[in-house]
C-alpha cells in the first residue's frame, strides 16, 4: 500500500468525502494518517463538522480500532513563506514580498508555483520521520484537484525543474518528483456510474500513464442498490400485472380490482421500475467502460439524506473491507 494516497476525480463526485473515508480506513490500530487538503476550501472541516482548520496538523478523528487521523489544510501562501524561511531564513524579506503581492503572484498568475508548494508540502509530510527514525505518518491521503488538473498538478515539478534549470527550486522540484513517480504514491479516481465522470476517469488515467505517474484504483462512489433484476422487470411488465395488483392488495395496500387502490399503483410502480431498469442498463455500460481502463475498482454505496459523520465511518468501513480483501489476495 503506497504511503501517499492521492484522491482525484471529476468535480462533485465525492473526492473530499472519499479521501476522508480513506484516511479513516487506513488508520487501523496503532496507525496514524494525515488527510491533506490543497484547494483552500475547508472541505475537511465541513465534513468533520469542526471549525476551519488552521495551517497546522491537528488530530481530527479517531478511527474505529483506535488509529488516528490528522488533518492539514495546506495554504499556498503560508507554504511559500515557510519555504522562504526554510531555505533563506527570509523573515522580513518574506513579509515584504507578501506586501508587494509576490504571494499573489505565486498563487494567481502562476498556479504552477502554487502547485509546487502544495505538492512539496505533502511530500514533506510523507517523508517526515520522528527522532527514532520512524515515519510520523503511516499514510498521507490527499484530497487532490479534480481530474482535469491532476496530471498538471502532480507533474508541475517536472515542468518547474525544466524552467528553473538549477538552484534550490530545481532541486526541490526533483525531490518531489522522485516521490510522486515512485510506487510510494498511488493516484485514485473517484467516479460515479455516469457517462461524463467515467469518460473523465478514462482520460485522466490515460494522461497520468502518459506522464508516468502511478495510477491507483477507480473508486466508484454513490452506487445505488439494484433493487430488481431485469428478469423480474420483464415479468412484471407482461402478464404478471394482475398478480402484482393482488400481491399489493395482500400486503394491505387496498383493492386489487380494476380502479382499486392497489390496482392503481401497478402502472406507476412499473413505470418507476422501467426507469430503474434503464438506469441499471446505463450503469452496466459504464461499468463496462470502467473495466476497459483495466484498474481495480472499489464500489462505495450511496448514502441517503446527506452525508454525516456516521455515514463517513460507514464509507470507511466499506473501504476497509475492500482493502482487506485486496491484502488477502496479496495485492498492493
Amino acid at each position, binding site marked *: 500500500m503506497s504511503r501517499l494516497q492521492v484522491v482525484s476525480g471529476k468535480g462533485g463526485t465525492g473526492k473530499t468525502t472519499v479521501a476522508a473515508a480513506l484516511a479513516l480506513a487506513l488508520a487501523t490500530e496503532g496507525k496514524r494518517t494525515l488527510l491533506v487538503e490543497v484547494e483552500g476550501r475547508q472541505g475537511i472541516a465541513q465534513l468533520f463538522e469542526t471549525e476551519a482548520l488552521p495551517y497546522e496538523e491537528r488530530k481530527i478523528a479517531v478511527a474505529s480500532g483506535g488509529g488516528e487521523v490528522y488533518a492539514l489544510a495546506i495554504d499556498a501562501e503560508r507554504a511559500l513563506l515557510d519555504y522562504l524561511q526554510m531555505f533563506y531564513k527570509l523573515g522580513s524579506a518574506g513579509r515584504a514580498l507578501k506586501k508587494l503581492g509576490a504571494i499573489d503572484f505565486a498563487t494567481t498568475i502562476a498556479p504552477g508555483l502554487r502547485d509546487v508548494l502544495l505538492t512539496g508540502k505533502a511530500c514533506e509530510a510523507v517523508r517526515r520521520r520522528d527522532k527514532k527514525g520512524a515515519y510520523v505518518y503511516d499514510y498521507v491521503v490527499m484530497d487532490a484537484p479534480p481530474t482535469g488538473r491532476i496530471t498538471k498538478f502532480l507533474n508541475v515539478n517536472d515542468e518547474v525543474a525544466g524552467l528553473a534549470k538549477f538552484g534550490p527550486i530545481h532541486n526541490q522540484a526533483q525531490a518531489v518528483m522522485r516521490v510522486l513517480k515512485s510506487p510510494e504514491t498511488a493516484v485514485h479516481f473517484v467516479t460515479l456510474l455516469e457517462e461524463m465522470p467515467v*469518460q473523465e476517469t478514462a482520460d485522466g488515467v490515460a494522461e497520468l500513464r502518459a506522464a508516468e505517474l502511478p495510477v491507483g484504483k477507480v473508486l466508484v462512489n454513490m452506487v445505488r442498490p439494484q433493487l430488481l433484476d431485469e428478469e423480474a422487470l420483464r415479468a412484471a411488465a407482461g402478464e404478471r400485472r394482475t398478480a402484482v395488483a393482488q400481491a*399489493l*392488495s395482500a400486503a394491505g395496500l387496498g383493492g386489487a380490482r380494476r380502479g382499486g387502490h392497489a390496482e392503481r399503483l401497478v402502472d406507476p410502480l412499473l413505470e418507476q421500475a422501467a426507469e430503474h431498469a434503464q438506469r441499471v442498463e446505463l450503469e452496466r455500460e459504464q461499468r463496462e467502460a470502467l473495466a476497459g481502463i483495466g484498474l481495480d475498482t472499489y464500489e462505495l454505496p450511496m448514502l441517503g439524506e446527506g452525508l454525516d459523520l456516521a455515514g463517513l465511518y460507514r464509507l470507511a468501513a466499506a473501504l476497509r473491507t475492500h482493502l482487506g480483501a485486496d491484502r488477502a489476495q496479496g495485492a498492493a
Partner: protein
Amino acid sequence: MSSQERRARETGLDTVPVLDTVPVLDVDPLLDDPATRIIVCCGSGGVGKTTTAAALGVRAAERGRRAVVLTIDPARRLAQSMGIDSLDNVPRRVKGIDEGAGGELHAMMLDMKRTFDEVVEANAAPDRARAILENPFYQSLSAGFAGTQEYMAMEKLGQLRARDEWDLIVVDTPPSRSALDFLDAPKRLGSFLDGKFIRVLMAPAKVGGRAGMKFLNVGMSMMTGTLSKLMGGQLLRDVQTFVAAMDTMFGGFRTRADATYRLLQAPGTAFLVVAAPERDALREAAYFVERLAAEEMPLAGLVLNRVHGSGAPQLSAERALAAAENLGQRGIVDQGDGNAGPRGSSTAASPETPRTTARGGAEDTRTEDTQSEGTQPEDTHAEGDGEVADDVAQLTAGLLRLHAERMQVLAREQRTRDRFTALHPEVAVTEVAALPGDVHDLAGLRDIGERLSHR
C-alpha cells in the same frame, strides 16, 4: 437580506414560512422576444449548465431565432451530436435543426488557449505578439492562469456579440465550484495584471525612473534579487520578458473585461441560474441570485434540473416499505391465512410524505385520503387473500422498495427546494425532470427544451 432571512439561512430555514405561490418560469417568451440578445446559463458544477444552454439554443433556433450557443467542455457525445467536437474555436452551423420557422443554430466549444492567443494577436503589434506567444512562460502557464477560462468565455462572448451575426447568443459557463467565479475571475485576473508585483518584475526593464523613485527601485532590485535566487535567474528573465511584452496589452485586457461586464448588465441580457435540487447546488444558486441583484444584472429565473417525480405520490415511503416487508415475510413463510388486512392497516398511520411531482410543489399532501385508504370499504376485504406466489411476492416487494427509495428522494428534494423558495420567493422557477438516461443528442435537447417551457 433581512435579519429574518439571515437567521433562517443559519438555522436551516425552518422558521420561514414557505410560500406556495412560486412564480413559474416559461422560457418561450424569453426566447421569442427579439430584445433578448444574450442568455447566460450559470450554476455550480455538474448541474446541467451545458445541457440547458444547448437545449435553449436548439429551441430558440427552431422557434425562428438566429442563435449561436457557446459551450464549454461539453460531454463528448453531446459535442459530436452537434458537430462541434473539433476544436477550432469558431461557431459551426448545427445540422438536423428544424429551420422551418426561419431560424438556425450555430454552436461552438470554447478553446481557452486559442482564445488567449487571439486576444494577444489582436492587441499587440505583430512582433510583440510573437514574442509573447513564443515565450516559454506564456506557453507553459497561459492555459493555467487562474480565471483564464472564465476570462476567455467572457472574451469570446464579447467577440460573438461584436460580430453581430446572430440575434441570440446562449452562453454556457465553465465548470466551477461556485457560479460566482464567472463574474469574479475575469476581474481577479484584471486586478492581478494591474498589481504592484507586475511593476516590480518590470522594474529592470524600465531602469531610469524618476529620482523620487530611486529608493523604491533599490527595494525592488533587492526583491528581484531574492526572486531570482528562488526561481532561478532564467525563469525570472522569461517572466520579465513576458510581463514586459504584455505591458502594452494590460489596459486592453481590462478594458475588454469591463466592456463585457457591462454587456452582462445590459437590458438584452438574461441570466438563468441552473441548479440541481441538492443542498450545495441550491445554496450556490441562492448566492448567485443575490450577487446578480447586487450587480444589477437581470435574472430570468432558476432552472431546477434533474427533479424526480412519481406517478404514485399517494403511497408514502414508510407504507411502501412496510408492505414490502409484509410481502417479504410471505415469501419466506407461507402464511396462507389470508389475513393481510390488519397488518396492512397498522402501517397506514405512518406519516405521509408530501406529494411531489416533477412540476408541482407541495400543494397537495392528500393526507386524509391516503391515511384512510387502507380502511375504505372497497379495501377491507383484500381480494388477494394472502395467496401470493413466492416470486410475485419478491417482485412486488422489489417494486415497493424502489418506490420507497423514490419517495425518499422526492421528500429530500422538496425540502432543499423549499429552503431556496423561502429565501427567494420572487425567483421564477422551472423544473426539468431527471431523465433516466444522459442527454446526448438533438432529440434529448429538444425534450429538455420542452420541459423548460412546460410544453
